[in-house]
């Protein structure tokens, strides 16, 4: 499996991406990664006991353009378990673009078919640095503009790159 290093201002995580079971989601994630999209984005939605979501906004809650969308692969059998990576999306089933989230607990209600007949596609898992996830989930959050659950101090993704 492809491994990537997610470097944040809270530390580094290593995630394994499951290109066997989630080929399209992994390809999409790597395409955004290779384009440098994730550099200087933030975890903008942090809900302890649920998940942390990021990869779509710059500090200051400025949304980054992310036009390419990917087919929903939630049917692949991977579960929304602790420390897994899954694609965020709008209510439209195939609307995932760059934003992803890391599950903090067993969110089985997000697994296919979910509550909307589609669910949320898991495509990877944090295998090193889970303590960084645990640190991020505990940060103090506030409201910002259109958003609830925004960290009061930016949690920044400095880079995402392939592990050597």
């Amino acid at each position, binding site marked *: 499996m492809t491994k990537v290093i997610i470097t944040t201002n809270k530390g580094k995580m290593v995630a394994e991406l499951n290109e066997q079971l989630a080929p399209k989601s992994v390809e999409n994630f790597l395409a955004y990664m290779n384009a440098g999209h994730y550099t200087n984005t933030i975890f903008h939605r942090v809900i302890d006991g649920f998940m942390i979501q990021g990869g779509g906004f710059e500090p200051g809650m400025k*949304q980054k353009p*992310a*036009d390419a969308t990917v087919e929903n692969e939630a049917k692949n059998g991977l579960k929304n378990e602790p420390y897994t990576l899954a694609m*965020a*999306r709008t209510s*439209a089933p195939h*609307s995932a673009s760059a934003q992803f989230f890391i599950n903090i607990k067993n969110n089985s209600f997000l697994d296919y078919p979910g509550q909307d007949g589609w669910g949320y596609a898991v495509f990877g898992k944090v295998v090193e640095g889970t303590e960084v996830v645990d640190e991020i989930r505990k940060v103090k959050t506030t409201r910002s*503009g*259109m*958003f609830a659950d925004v960290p009061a101090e930016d949690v920044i993704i400095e880079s995402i790159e392939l592990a050597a």
Partner: protein
Amino acid sequence: MSNTLTGARASDASALFISDLHLQAAQPAITAAFHDFLDRHARRAPQLYLLGDLFEYWAGDDDLIDPFNREIITALRRVSDAGTAIYWIAGNRDFLVGADFAAAAGVTLLPEVFVTEIGGQRLVLVHGDAQCTEDINYMQFRAMVRQPAWQQQFVAMPLAQRKAIIAGMRENSRKDQDAKTMEIMDVTPQAIADLFAQTGTNIMIHGHTHRPALHLAGATRRYVLPDWEPDATPPRGGWIAIDGAGVITRHGLDGAVIADSL
């Protein structure tokens, strides 16, 4: 437009929902954003729902002659004449809107609570103030001012006197909101659960609280509309859209879709 996603363009929408613009002559940026929204998005939608507090205040339908009010009504009327059905649920600021306003603006006044079906989804629409049940003082005030007898007595006063009374209320409300805890000013979970149960729905759209969000609880989805403040950093405002397939999306002022459905 960034993040234009499948099935989520406003031009594909069956219905758009806004609330809490608090339109007033003293806030030209909000008014400009509202006109922009009407021209670029609402005109293309078959239905537009105004879920309360479109106006900062409404003193009575004899205030239709006010130049600012006339500007807003003319803008709504243009959209209505172009084929968009516009529906109105009163807020706690503009509940004195009546039949004359509705006729002038081309708007249909809806009763609150309103249950409808759009894109195959059954949903319940309210402004949201009646669900802030822990705010005892406000609930008492609301019960009083929503009585027809009180309203008849109030609108019988000269317009200038009504405006002076409203100005005083707004001043008190500002002071109150500083003193009350955030928790009291939000809706209460029990009132929301009751409303879902009473209406047999599991999707709700409301405004009022100025806490835009999507709340998932069990099988229910509660969408909260934003208030509008385009000059804030980051800007506040936007709408909710339902497309023909019943997909519900939250949009920022620039139209970008918010990816927080989970």
